[in-house]
């Protein structure tokens, strides 16, 4: 942290004598390890107490919504990866569901189940990165290495499926990009069945760590009403006692067929958010096991030749398939005019893409309702009136991704 400007004395009433408080304006970021990206916060301090906190965002703004208007419908999938780079498959899914709603496509069961399986692995991936960095912020270094050890396995799985570790673009409009690779069940099964014991390891490390416990319990409390009014979604709201999960309340992609519970904690502090996310990882593990065991047979692409690329073999032998292939590749497909919004529960909360089509092969407008943007608005409420050392714990517990905030 670097001090910006000089310390300024408060109003004359509090005086300048011995023992008097002095206000100080402190610039935190944009380059600071515990801001988890390029976030700048202007703090006004009275001793160690934060009087006001003003977040300054936009350092990572790359105009993704503007770029999307210049691309074809299918090409936009690649941009959604780059919005929230820790939950790429959740973003792919949210975007595809909205466009599929406009197109009126029916997705075959296998593709739906694969989507559930992959987004749940994404949730585990994102929570592992959160846990590792959050624990590191609070001085528990070992957990970071353990979490990234498991995360590496997940990235290998993503690479196996899509050829990419981070920017997967595996979920496409109309289904999936590719047939799952040979031996994927064994690879996913091997990883996912070993995960619960790994989560036990993290919990043992942190729950027996008095520093971690003291720095998280009772810190950064906010009520549900306040969180909802500020636009906060996801684990933060569930850690304040509200059982609201879009997978249950507005099921998409066959989530209603899976058996899982929504973790809720009443406390609303940093420790409750930790507990909720740890239990969410266990629930995601259960969902992945169910998806693995009950994976339906069939196609991974919708029966919509005007949208989905034909199989290579068909393209080479059938005239009609060749024409469709040519049309989709050269000019893309048209989406009926209209507007649609399908919310999805990403690891951070509600993500949804409000897509507006004017009937052409490019989107007219895509509004990205990203969870981190809404969640970060609660930062002043979390900081103000608390100690500056607690602000680091509060900041980590929000689990935002700056790419998701700035877009």
């Amino acid at each position, binding site marked *: 942290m670097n001090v910006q400007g000089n310390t300024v004395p408060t109003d004359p009433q509090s005086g300048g004598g011995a023992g008097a408080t002095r206000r100080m304006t402190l610039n935190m970021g944009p380059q600071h390890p515990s801001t988890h990206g390029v976030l700048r916060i202007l703090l006004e301090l009275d001793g160690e107490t934060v009087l006001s906190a003003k977040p300054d965002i936009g350092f990572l703004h790359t105009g993704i919504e503007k770029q999307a208007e210049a691309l074809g419908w299918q090409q936009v999938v690649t941009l959604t990866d780059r919005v929230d780079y820790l939950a790429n498959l959740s973003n792919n899914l949210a975007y595809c569901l909205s466009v599929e709603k406009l197109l009126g496509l029916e997705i075959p069961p296998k593709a739906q189940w694969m989507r559930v399986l992959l987004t749940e692995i994404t949730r585990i991936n994102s929570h592992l990165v959160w846990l590792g960095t959050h624990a590191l912020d609070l001085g528990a270094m070992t957990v970071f290495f353990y979490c990234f050890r498991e995360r590496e396995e997940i990235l290998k799985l993503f690479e196996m499926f899509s050829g990419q570790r981070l920017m997967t673009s595996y979920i496409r409009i109309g289904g999936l990009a590719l047939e799952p690779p040979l031996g994927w069940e064994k690879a996913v099964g091997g990883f996912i069945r070993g995960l619960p014991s790994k989560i036990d390891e993290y919990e043992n490390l942190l729950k027996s760590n008095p520093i971690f416990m003291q720095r998280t319990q009772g810190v950064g409390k906010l009520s549900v009403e306040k969180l909802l009014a500020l636009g906060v979604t996801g684990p933060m709201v569930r850690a304040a006692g509200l059982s609201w999960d879009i997978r249950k309340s507005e099921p998409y992609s066959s989530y209603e067929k899976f058996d899982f519970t929504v973790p809720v904690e009443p406390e609303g502090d940093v420790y409750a958010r930790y507990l909720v996310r740890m239990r969410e990882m266990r629930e995601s593990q259960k969902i992945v096991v169910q998806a693995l065991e009950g994976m339906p047979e069939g196609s991974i692409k919708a029966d919509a030749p005007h949208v989905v690329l034909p199989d290579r073999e068909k393209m080479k032998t059938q005239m009609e398939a060749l024409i469709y292939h040519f049309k989709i590749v050269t000019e893309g497909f048209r989406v009926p005019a209209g507007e649609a919004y399908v919310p999805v529960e990403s690891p951070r909360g509600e993500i*949804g893409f409000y897509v507006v089509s004017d009937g052409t092969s490019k989107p007219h407008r895509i509004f990205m309702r990203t969870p981190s943007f809404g969640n970060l608005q609660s930062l002043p409420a979390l900081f103000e009136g608390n100690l500056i050392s607690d602000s680091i714990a509060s900041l980590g517990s929000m689990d935002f991704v700056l790419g998701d905030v700035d877009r």
Partner: protein
Amino acid sequence: MLPEALGAIETVSALEAFNEAAVTGGELSRGEALLWIRREKIAEVCLFLRDERKFERLSGLTVIDRHPIEPRFEVLYLLHSVSRNERLKLKVALPGDAADVASVTGVWPGADWYEREAFDLFGVRFTGHPDLRRIMMPHDWEGHPLRKDFPTHGHKYSYRND
């Protein structure tokens, strides 16, 4: 005035009973209810929906630019009631030469950044907003990038000047 399927929704009939003149139209498309609200009534309508119909949260707020059609801007409000598991879309039409509408930050504090973003990227002004300044673009930026008449390439800062 409103389609029959839309009038059957309880929230919509309650809103019409509250202030019929505020709603100028609407549609129910693919299961999503959309209401067009008269520009000067939006804050009042939002307050009613929050207090009487339990729309505790504003899920999002954005603008759709229909350039060159007038009225050019459509301000979109995505409302969500967690307790009743209901979603509702509101829209307000704004002409290009007088793009201002009342802020709803008094109803949901979470509207703050969404309105700043809409102002920054579209140039729509929200009257009564406590701190309406740019949020994504640099403070000295000229123009509003998400408007349809703002070029994707060819801007003076663009890496490709074509």
